[in-house]
């Protein structure tokens, strides 16, 4: 949501105390302009970004609309920088109208360099709003910065498909999950798929078929192997399957899982034709001959179901795609919730690493 009006401040060679005082001043200034201007008080977000990509990150964050963090602190890193510079803005998302409240969102960009890395925590800590949860995001990696800022955060945002080596992404998410709540965009992209699998087997008459799943095939964007692994990990953790490492052959991963009654054939396959990250399609078959197939389509997922008698039906499951900007906004929203099924799915995915 673009800001309608901004109050801004900047200073070169500044200090965290000065930035914090400036933010207080800007908020007081906005409130005195109109009593209806009130600061959002939901979530702090601390983003550690490389300065040369900070414009791209700013664009992504602008796309999150109403899921903008109440206070966004961007630590813009340029290795050779020696001076701490900062820009702060307090933006209103609408015109003030009598009797209405208009939310203010605060953004601070702190430009820093190598010499500040050891002090990251003491730079960011005074800038977050006390008593609000803090979400940490480091889209360009920099595990050392993440490590330094962890004591400040209650949740961290990552996108497992961003890691160059997908197996390492699963390890990393698991390690972070030991410390704080992880919001993984790769997991969020699979939400509609998980909802639909859950819905398919929700009627009591079909629930027993969960015990009879015999095979799963997942097609995914070439960079989204982790998304497929997480989906299988989710089914395995919810249904109590025992897992073993998958075999890698070209762009295919395959293997088996062991359920109480039978073995389940697993297959993950890259779909080069898919242009957007995430899953392209999946197929689940049960021992009694039921097959559910879901494919990405316009206006929602395309479902194809074959029942035990071999009758086939196809339909579209309505739902608008959030798009990549929507996924980032959803990630920010999820920082305030807790999905108890992600971590077990992640741990299950780790057991399948080749």
């Amino acid at each position: 949501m673009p800001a309608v009006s901004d109050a801004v401040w900047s200073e070169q060679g500044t200090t965290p105390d000065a930035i914090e005082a400036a933010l207080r001043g800007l908020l007081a200034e906005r409130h005195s302009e109109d009593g209806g201007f009130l600061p959002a008080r939901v979530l702090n977000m601390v983003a550690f970004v490389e300065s040369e990509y900070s414009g791209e990150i700013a664009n992504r964050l602008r796309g999150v609309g109403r899921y903008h963090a109440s206070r966004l602190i961007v630590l813009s890193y340029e290795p050779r920088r020696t001076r701490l510079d900062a820009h702060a803005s307090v933006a209103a998302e609408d015109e003030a109208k009598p009797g209405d409240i208009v939310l203010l969102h605060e953004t601070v960009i702190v430009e820093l360099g190598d010499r500040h890395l050891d002090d990251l925590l003491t730079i960011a800590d005074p800038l977050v709003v006390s008593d609000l949860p803090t979400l940490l995001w480091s889209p360009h990696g920099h595990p050392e910065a993440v490590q330094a800022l962890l004591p400040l955060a209650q949740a961290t945002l990552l996108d497992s498909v961003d890691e160059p080596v997908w197996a390492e992404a699963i390890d990393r998410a698991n390690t972070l999950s030991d410390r704080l709540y992880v919001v993984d965009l790769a997991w969020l992209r699979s939400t509609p798929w998980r909802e639909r699998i859950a819905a398919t087997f929700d009627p009591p008459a079909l629930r027993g078929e969960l015990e009879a799943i015999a095979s799963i095939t997942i097609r995914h964007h070439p960079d989204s192997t982790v998304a497929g692994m997480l989906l299988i990990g989710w089914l395995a953790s919810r249904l109590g399957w025992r897992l073993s490492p998958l075999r890698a052959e070209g762009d295919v991963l395959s293997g088996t899982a062991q359920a109480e009654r039978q073995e389940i054939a697993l297959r993950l396959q890259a779909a080069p034709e898919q242009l957007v990250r995430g899953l392209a399609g999946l197929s689940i078959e049960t021992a009694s001959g039921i097959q559910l197939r879901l494919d990405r389509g316009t206006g929602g997922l395309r479902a194809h179901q074959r029942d035990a008698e071999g009758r086939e039906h196809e339909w579209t499951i309505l739902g608008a795609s959030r798009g990549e900007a929507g996924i980032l906004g959803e990630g920010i929203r999820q920082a305030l919730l807790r999905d108890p099924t992600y971590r077990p799915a992640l741990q299950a995915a780790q057991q399948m690493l080749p």
Partner: protein
Amino acid sequence: MSTVEQTENPLVAGLERLPVAPTTLVIFGATGDLAKRKLLPALYNLAHEGALPERFHLVGVSRKEKEDEDYRDECEQAIRRFSRRKPSEDVLQGFLENVKYVPGEFDEDAPYAELEQVLDEFDQEAGETLNRAFYLSTAPNFFPLIVERLGARGLSSHDDAEVRVIIEKPFGTSLQEALELNRQVLDVFEETQIFRIDHYLGKETVQNMMAFRFANGMFEPLWNRNYIDSVQITAAEDIGIGTRAGFYDQTGALRDLIQNHMLQLLCHVAMEPPVSFTAEEVRNEKVKVLHAIHAPKSEQVPEIAVHAQYAAGHSGGEDVPGYLQEDGVREGSTTETFAALRLEVDNWRWAGVPFYLRAGKRLARKITEIAVTLKPVPHLAFSQDGSLGVKPNQLVLTLQPNEGVTLQLGAKIPGSRMRIRSVNMEFLYGTSFMSQSPEAYERLIMDAMRGDPTLFTRNDEVEAQWRICDPVLQAWESSGGQLPQYEAGSQGPSVADDLLLDGHHWRAI
């Protein structure tokens, strides 16, 4: 870790949206205002979010002759005009593909026969038996007729699937009518199949009242007659009746707002904590509150109830007509545009605490709020120092326009003397949550399709509401004569003050 031996679906844990069984929704009154403004946009928004059942069909039933295509065009226009979000073309077209229309008079057999055929075709096409939900969005006089015809056609049940009926308000216009309507509906459907809509219950802020009361330990010790002096519930509108004279002149403020919405709010304030948040437990507790309110005897009505009509005045800086000058209002109409009641919940927790309810049109501004006033402190040591405006603490839950909670506290005025005045500690939902609240109808339609009746009114609840309001209406009808007037855009009629016990005041609107 879950196993499939559990009866619960192990895959739903962690999902924000629970699965809803494949359903065909039939809207009776499909071309009416409610369908266009609320129901169709709500259904589209559910589709947009991927929240509708994965197999979903919509059938519109109405008296006007038209083809499926024409009705789809009407649906499209309504969604484009009234949806809270800009429609996605792909989703909208996908949604409209599954829409059919059945024309016919509600008292004839033909539309029900055609409807049955359409529903069966959907089942065959899907290869499974779809749940059916009948939404009665017609004038209330058609409710018993439609229900009876559905039953006669055998559409009130369906092999291997759930059939539900959703009934819009008003559920009767008197106790007698409500009893009769309940009897007629229950002749055809089981109570578990019936979903009586009170859309206030679908509002996030109303639901949040239970969270506020039962998830915060600090309020419960004070939430009783020992500490609470009075409760005021206000539903004020600054607008007049607009184009709704036909409906409003037959209804009035008591039937329109107090009998249903405001008594529901009262129940949320006064109910005991339910053992669990299941539909039956919550509704049992609400019914207990309603049963604890004595229906007034006719001679008591003037002491506990006030009604009035707005006269010409000023609203929003413009001259506005009085109620009797509004288009479509009967000459000499005695329909009230303002109603206020003083009720008592006669139980252990609330005995002696007055609950003031008021609702009206063309008042100073639009606000819906619940104000809980605590008893004053027993001794104010600072009074001799000239404290200003010390008031008992007041907790105000605002439902609209800016949802939030305000606590009025006494605080020291800066300076060398110990002087006190009231200040506000404010919490506003808008500043503390990112998510946009869904429209009440979105939540209620989903709950009805899912079969969760928690946010719907049970038969005994409706009847208990009418038992409180019916004697008031009867007394007003028998008293006749012109109603007291209040100037449009004002705080309401001065006669409303007659209800107040000593030391009490209406909050400024």
